[in-house]
């Protein structure tokens, strides 16, 4: 039964729906965190392949990145959600919508990160590699000790930005019925005719998450930065 007792205040309703909101928030955090962590790992690998791989190896990866970056996130989510679900079901695997949501956002994140990695690595002068080689270092060592540390400093600020984009993008998962915070908000609004208040609250939660990410990013930036010209 829909509760239409208008004597209950807004805050009481929120209090009564707290488990729903907390569950939604946990899902949002889980999906975003999963997508950011996995997407970053995948993105670094793809970025390295595109930067240093031979032209045949990097072709499919470049195509992947171009396609994902060219599509609206919502379209990517729909494609992954329906196609992956269809393919997996046809081979007898049932995956929870949550996992599929993570995969969709992870793919989006990896495409963004791979471009950041490629851009940062290509900006490092080739002479840095020469200097490492002249010391007798091998390429994997040069990558680890010379190139990636410099690239990381360049990448961090836009990467933090990407992370907040993922959190914002996770709201789109509500359109494929994944019970994250946005969907919870919608459900609350459907029950109670106070859309502005509910969405404001939901918005405030997203704002808090993203502010936390940005503050964390700034702190990390300070830690890893080195004196530049």
């Amino acid at each position, binding site marked *: 039964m829909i509760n239409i007792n208008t004597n209950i205040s807004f805050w009481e309703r929120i209090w009564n729906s707290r488990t729903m909101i907390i569950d939604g928030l946990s899902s949002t955090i889980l999906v975003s965190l999963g997508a950011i962590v996995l997407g970053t790992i995948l993105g670094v690998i793809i970025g390295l392949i595109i930067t240093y791989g031979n032209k045949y190896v990097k072709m499919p990866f470049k195509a992947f990145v171009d396609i994902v970056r060219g599509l609206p996130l919502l379209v990517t989510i729909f494609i992954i959600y329906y196609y992956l679900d269809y393919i997996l079901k046809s081979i007898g695997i049932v995956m929870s919508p949550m996992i599929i949501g993570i995969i969709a956002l992870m793919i989006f994140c990896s495409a963004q990160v791979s471009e950041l990695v490629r851009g940062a690595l290509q900006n490092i002068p080739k*002479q840095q590699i*020469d200097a490492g*080689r*002249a*010391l*007798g270092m091998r390429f994997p060592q040069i990558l680890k000790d010379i190139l990636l*540390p410099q690239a990381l400093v360049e990448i961090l600020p836009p990467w933090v930005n990407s992370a907040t984009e993922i959190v914002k993008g996770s709201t789109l998962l509500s359109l494929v019925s994944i019970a994250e915070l946005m969907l919870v908000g919608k459900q609350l609004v459907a029950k109670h005719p106070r859309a502005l208040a509910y969405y404001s609250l939901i918005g405030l939660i997203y704002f808090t998450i993203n502010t936390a990410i940005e503050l964390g990013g700034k702190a990390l930036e300070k830690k890893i930065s080195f004196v530049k010209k």
Partner: protein
Amino acid sequence: MTEPLLKIRNLGKSFGKVKVFEGANLDVNEGEVVTIIGPSGSGKTTLLRCINLLEQFEEGSILLDGKEVGYKVENGKRKRYSEHVIAEQRQMTGMVFQQFNLFPHMTALKNVMLGLIRVKKLPHDEAEKISRKWLERVGLADKVDNYPAQLSGGQQQRVAIARALAMNPRIVLFDEATSALDPELVGEVLNVIKQLANDGITMILVTHEMRFAYEVSDKVVFMDGGKIAAIGTPKEIFEDRALPRLKEFLYNFNI
């Protein structure tokens, strides 16, 4: 007479269809200081980069301490060694670059230590001790904790020299080590190089500092149009100037 430390025989290198140099022959003995002079585009830097195997070359051979580096012959076919072997062979040479090429995210000390730890696999303490000693030798004992961006060009180049020397290479290659420096900073770097030359370190320098070349060299190589046009003592090259092209080239330097 002992074997030369470095033997270059009939070395040839092209970028695509463009020949950079060909038929280069050069011997460098232990403890010798050899300078390479010549107009720009004559292949000096590329020759130096070939010795350090930073460039591939199509013809001829380079022997370091009697052993051919860079390429081997397998079933009658010339083959470049794997990166692994090349990385090892590179340890016999050290290189100082025109643009210093210090690692900007590391302090002066860490710049010098990196190769000792990663390549020579020395323990941290020992690597630090050697690095401090070398930074002191180039007059930068008080700058060990500075980042490259906090150092002048001359100081950066001295860190780069310490970084190359700390690896204890058999030959040190200087690629126009003072060309990127403001004129007032050239002297401090040349003095360090001179000191190393006096200490008996074998080196090959590509340089436009003619007076310096005249003073420190045991042997001067004049490259012109992709060939080694003349090799001689500083006196033969700078005073006798037997070759018209050499005369013309040196005339431009007002010496």
